[in-house]
């Protein structure tokens, strides 16, 4: 059992760029001392609203990519959806704004030792961290098939370079405005069979994760999920982001900022998850 985020640092970083991608925003942050240690699946926490902010709590974001930039050093990229006052403030900031950053936080996607066949299943902006994961999987010789779902076309996150990394991309939308009309789980079983999928990674809304896990369990395919729970701190002290998880034969409320966000689907006590 993990107890703390050992690699976490707290620093001030500069917002290097911000641009709109569909209904989302793509942010690039200078994050010296944080980006270097980040692994696919990790997240960061940002303070919002400036020094006299009435918004006291951390806003947490999955890392889309972390890399060394030739002119700016260690940078972290985020895909941010507007979901309230905090993210509204964040996406209204201009390049050069200084932000307080804490990270990297949480667990990362465990990578298979062998070159296996992998499906990545992303819902909405939850697809973002999966493309970075796909890079790492491809480097290990894995085949990667992506299934990207959203309510509507403007909420599909499937960047061009990400699409080039993976072997195939299947898009689904609830309203049929892009790709196949329906849910990711409508197309997943067929892809599992056709590509002989050995392993599934998913990130997106809780209902989608659960539906994917139902399929993974029924076919006995290992499934790593990245959950998104409401967090106040992201560093393990507020106890708000807990998820009911199996620990031995007991269900325990476990902090998803420390023992998640990436969790083995089998460990989640789905029936006890609040809806």
């Amino acid at each position, binding site marked *: 059992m993990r107890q703390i985020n050992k690699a976490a640092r707290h620093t001030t970083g500069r917002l290097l760029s911000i641009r709109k991608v569909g209904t989302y925003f793509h942010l690039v942050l200078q994050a010296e001392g944080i980006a270097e240690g980040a692994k696919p699946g990790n997240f960061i926490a940002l303070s919002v609203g400036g020094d006299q902010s009435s918004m006291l*709590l*951390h806003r947490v974001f999955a890392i889309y990519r972390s890399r060394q930039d030739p002119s700016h050093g260690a940078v972290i990229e985020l895909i941010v959806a507007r979901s309230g006052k905090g993210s509204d403030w964040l996406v209204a900031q201009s390049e050069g704004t200084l932000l307080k950053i804490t990270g990297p936080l949480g667990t990362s996607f465990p990578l298979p030792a062998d070159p296996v066949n992998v499906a990545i299943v992303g819902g909405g902006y939850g697809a973002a961290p999966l493309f970075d994961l796909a890079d790492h999987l491809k480097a290990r010789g894995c085949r990667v098939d992506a299934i990207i779902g959203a309510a509507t076309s403007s909420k599909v996150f499937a960047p061009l370079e990400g699409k080039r990394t993976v072997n195939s991309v299947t898009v689904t939308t609830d309203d049929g405005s892009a790709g196949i009309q329906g849910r990711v789980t409508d197309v997943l079983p067929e892809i599992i069979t056709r590509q002989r999928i050995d392993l599934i990674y998913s990130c997106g809304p809780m209902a989608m994760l659960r539906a994917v896990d139902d399929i993974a369990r029924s076919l006995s395919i290992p499934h790593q999920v990245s959950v998104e729970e*409401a967090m106040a701190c992201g560093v393990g002290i507020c106890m*708000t982001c807990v998820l009911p998880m199996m620990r031995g034969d007991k269900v*325990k409320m476990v902090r998803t900022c420390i023992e998640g966000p990436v969790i083995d689907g089998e460990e989640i006590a789905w029936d006890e998850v*609040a809806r």
Partner: protein
Amino acid sequence: MTLDFSTTIAGVRFKNPIFTASGCAASGKELSQFFPLKELGAVVTKSIMLKARSGRPTPRMAETPSGMLNSIGLQGPGIDAFIEEDLAWLQTQSCDVIVSIAGETVDEYGALARRLRGQRGIKAIEVNISCPNVANRGQVFSCDPVTARAAIEAVRINLGGEFPIIAKLSPDVTDIVAIAREVIEAGADGLALINTLLGMVINPKTLRPHLAGKTGGLSGPAIRPVAVRAIFQVRERFPSVAIVGMGGVVHGEDALELVAAGADAVSIGTASFGNPMSVIEIRDRLSTLIQDHGFTRFSDAVGVAHER
């Protein structure tokens, strides 16, 4: 000119007056990756109960203007696992520790105190008789003078004078001075003022309470004026009792407000959630501000707002 930044709570000296607030720093390990815990005046642990507890269902949190509601429900490992693991680890950190305890019954408070006797590395016991996140609001011991007194007496008798007792009170009472009097008479050496205020948020989409537990404890700068008022009133009536102040301190200026009202030490809670370095930033700023006001000893600034 150097500042004597130390403070004394019920006869125990602490190197500086900035503490963590119970329930906002777990048992210290999570913050220790950002700074050494010995930089703090004291680590106040989350409130430990007799048995392990899984707490309330989610959602447990709602951000509110300049604050937040929480309904964690005292999730924790229970006293035995706490002593074996958390306290043992804290003893290796060369930091001063105040252990916070919470019972469901008067007997449980006594049992918790008995269990802590003889434990090394504890400077004081905070008796949390004011957690609002219990199923029965009638169980908030500090809302009733009789139960407030009974809980503190149980701790005093079972602790055998080994550690000073700090009683943590709720501001959700008509007269906090009256409750303070009861617990002082029952043997409390100091007071922790204030715990969260009971609040509720209704989700505008579902038109139902946002928290699964319906009500939660309100913390953050939204409650700071309530904390300042409570500290001021209690200090006015009890000039010599030790007071650990808390309630929405985010900046050094806020900490100084509580000190001027009468706090001998200041605990930082919600601010740590949005910035894990808050405690250190507040400590350093408070030290500067106190010197700017011309004080050479921190203790001279305590309660200065009461002077004419």
